[in-house]
Every structure is written in C-alpha cells, then in structure tokens.
C-alpha cells in the first residue's frame, strides 16, 4: 500500500501543517509516512505544496510520483494539476475560490469541487481550511483512525482552538466519505 496525497495552495493557508498532521496521525497508526514540501521565497502568498506519502512499508522516494489525491486550495495550485495523469487520481479543489468555468477547462469526473473555504467560514473558523482538507484526505486512507487524528490535533492546538479544529476535522471527514 502506498498512498500519495498532495496538499497544494498558497503560503499562509496552512497546507504544510495539514500534511504534517496527516503524517503524524499515520505514524500513530503504525504506518510509515514521509512529508516533503515546496514553497517559494515569501512567507505568505505564492505557491506552496506538500507531498504526504503513507505506506505500510519503508518509503524510499519521499516525493509524490503517482498521486492518489490532490487537494488544491488556490487557483495557482489548481492550474498545476489540471493535466494530472492517472485515472486513479482524485483532484479536490476549492470551488468557492477557483472559478473553473472562467479557466475554460472541461473537467472529467476525477475533479470534484468542494467550497472548502466557504464551509470553514460557515463553521465559524475561516482559518481551519487546512484542517477541513486534512479531514477530507484522511477519509480516503482507511488505516488512519479518527482517534489518531484527534490525538494529533490535541497535541498541536491549544485547548481554546482544539474544539473548533475537531469540528472542522469531523466535517472534513464527513465530506470526504461522501465522495468515496
């Protein structure tokens, strides 16, 4: 089993943290995980992505070769994966931020639009876009348990922020499951 997730967006959306948390939860569940990252020179804005690979055996090459899942949270990120190869790859994009029609591509069924940012705003925590995305991704990897994710979040966030993030995580998982 080798499952490759790419979280892609722009600096400041927390995509790298989403990858880290997913990796931590995977390791907690006894899996192997690697995370690599690519970012530009500016701390905010600019294309950022992280490759998260989960496997039940030693991971040799830590970069994504055949992604199973891409979560694109900004148009700049989405454009890079518009011509992704492989039927097995699902591309979930933030349909609230990315106007597919204006880009002018006709997308096949591998592409799924979810208004992730809008949902985060509705949940009352606009900054939890990355945790929502984490939940979506986690729902595709059956060996990662909800408990492991919750424990990972509880070690990352302060008590004040934890509740909102668990809520976002649960919502993400619910969204993800609906796509399975």
């Amino acid at each position, binding site marked *: 089993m080798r499952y490759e997730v790419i979280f892609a967006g722009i600096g400041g959306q927390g995509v790298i943290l989403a*990858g*880290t948390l997913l*990796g*931590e939860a995977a*390791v907690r569940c006894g899996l*192997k*995980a*690697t*995370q*690599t*990252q*690519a*970012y*530009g*020179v500016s701390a905010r804005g600019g294309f950022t992505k992280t490759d998260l690979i989960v496997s039940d055996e030693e*991971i*040799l*090459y*830590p*970069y994504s*070769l055949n992604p199973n899942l891409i979560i694109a949270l900004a148009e700049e990120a989405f454009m890079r994966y518009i011509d992704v190869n492989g039927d097995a790859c699902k591309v979930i994009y933030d349909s609230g931020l990315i106007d597919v029609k204006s880009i002018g591509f006709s997308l096949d069924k591998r592409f799924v639009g979810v208004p992730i940012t809008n949902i985060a705003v509705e949940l009352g925590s606009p900054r939890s876009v990355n945790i929502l995305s984490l939940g979506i991704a986690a729902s595709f990897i059956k060996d990662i348990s909800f408990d492991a994710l919750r424990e990972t979040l509880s070690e990352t966030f302060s008590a004040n922020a934890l509740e909102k993030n668990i809520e976002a995580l649960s919502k993400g998982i619910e969204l993800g499951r609906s796509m399975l």
Partner: protein
Amino acid sequence: MIERRRFMLGNEAIVEGALMAGARFFAGYPITPSSEIAEGASRKLPQVGGYYLQMEDELASIAAVIGASIGGLKAFTATSGPGFSLMQENIGLAVMAEVPCVIVDVQRSGPSTGLATRPAQADMMQARWGRHGDQSIIALSPSSVQECFDLIICAFNLAETYRCPVLFMADETVGHLREDCLLRAEADVEIVNRKRPPEDVDGYLPYKPDDDLVPPMVAPGGKHLTRFHSSTHNEKGLPTSSPEEADKLVRRLYDKIEKNKDRIIKYKQYDVDESEYLLVTFGGAVRAARQAAADMKKQGLKVGVLELQTVWPFPTEHIAELAKGKRGIVVPEMNLGQIIGEVKKVVCGKVPVVGANRCDGEPLSPQEIAKALGEVVSR
C-alpha cells in the same frame, strides 16, 4: 533521556542529535533551508544551560563556534551554500588550529543566491577543496531523518576524536523531509569526548601528538596554558617558517584523517554483491536511487546501491572492490557531476560510469536514474 519516536523534520533531528552528542553552543546566521536548525537550537540550548548566539554573519558564526570549542563546549553551526562559502576561511582555521566543531550545510541550489528554497548537492567539492592549503577533511551526508539524528552524533564524535572540523553535508530534500525518527535513549548512544592530557603531566605541549597523530586538547583556565595557532606552528604552538616543521605539521594534519580512513568511513549498501550494476550515491539522492533500484528489480535488472554516509575522506578502496565485475556504475547526485569524478578515478575506465544529474532545483527522480542506467546498460 528515554527513547522517543517523532514525526519530525530532518533539520529538527539534527538539533536533537547535536544535543544528544553533547553540543551546548550554537552560533549561526539564519539561512534557508537550514533555519529550522537555528530555530531549534535557540529553543533547546538555553533549556539545558547551553547557548544560542545569532551572529552578525557566517564569518562570525564559525569564528564563535571555534572560540566556544576552545573554551570547552561542543559547538556547531548550520548554514547553506552562501553561508558555507563565507565560512570557508575559518573552517581552515579549525583544521589548522585543530579545533573540533561541526558545520552543517543544508545544500540548496546555486551558484550565488540561486534558488534559495530548492535542493541541490552541489557543495560537495567545496566541502573537500573549499579552503586554501593542503588538508584532508571529514564530511558526512544524511539520506533520511533518522540519519540526520544518528550521523550528526557521529559527526561530533569524529570531530572530538580527530580534533578537527566535521562537515555535515545535508541538503534541502533531507533537511525539509519529515518522517518518523527514533530519538535514541542516552544509554544507547556512544558519545566521544576530546582527549585531554593527564592533569599531572608537566610540560604540556599544545600540538604534540600522541601515536594516533592527534594532540590532546585542554581548555584554558586549568593547569596547562593553551595555545591555538592559525599560522604554521611547532609543537609548542609557536609560529615557525622551518620547512621541516611545516612539512611535519601539514602531513600530520592530513594523515590523522587519511590514515584513519577505515575508522572514519561509514556507508550502507543494498544488494551490492549480487548486482550487475551499481548506484553510488549520497544524501538526498539515495532515496531516488533506492527507488530506482527497486523499480529495476521488478524489471529483472540487478542493481545495487552504495550509500556514502561518509563522502570525505572518499572510500576509494571499498568502491574499487565493489566495482570489480560490475557492468556499469551510475552516480546519481543533484549537481552536474562532482562525486562522479572520484568514482571515475577509482575505476580507471575499467567499468563504464555514468551520471544521473540535475541542477534545476528539483529533486532527482527515480526515472532519471533509470534513464541513466538504461544508458549504461545499452553500452
């Protein structure tokens, strides 16, 4: 300290390993992609009574590291290409004055500012030859987060054993790689401390070597007066222009590493004996090489991987031995061909040697290595 497992960055593991090795002083100047090491050191060192100094530049950073080591602390710095270039003169000082210290270079794309956030392994020859004057040098290169932890401890141990600077040639792909790392328990780790002269010895000479060619080292403030010298010096630590004394010193500095190669050199190897082809690689490129070898195996090609954990001094004899009977060698590295030259020198044209190279700031991929292998197979 008990054993812990953490999903962590290579750069973070370097800090954990350095602390485990006994480092209590870091001086540096932040630079991408090494800055997490400075950040980690600034958090952790004061907690254990150590010191983090953010210096005005890399010249000051390595100088302060040398000072702290002379003062009696295990000391290290971390930088990337531009800073590594600035440090070269004083790395030479650490060689000449025989001051143990560890310099981490998390390599990035160059020349000059280059692609500041993107990986490369193009400082390998600078590591070997970046300073003026004859000398040998020790350089290690990690290929995983676990090796960041384990090998940085080796780096400190080697520095202490041989009273010399040790270069830790990481790269962005490893420094910014997050994976599971076993932070070993203190009891499970071997720690070496610098050799000191007996307190009751009279007439201590700061640069009089023992049989292992390494002079015992004392910190100032104790019974013995210490002298450290950047100029060519005699055993008393006084400058000399005698050709005999100069020859003796330069050869000893060189020999104390070259004659101990067997003890210094570490490597890992995968399927090298039964293979027809060999990948000789190091650092971040190892991961792509091992993936390529695994992919080739599925296609029925027998490919072994030699991972150089110690790049300098170069494992000439070992590679010569492994190369015997091989049909081809590929040297994957994220540069336009640096270590390949050393491999070619070893095999002297008896085995075809091809590079798998990249200089665009992207990590080397298994496909590129497979392509290079294809080239050597078709010869």
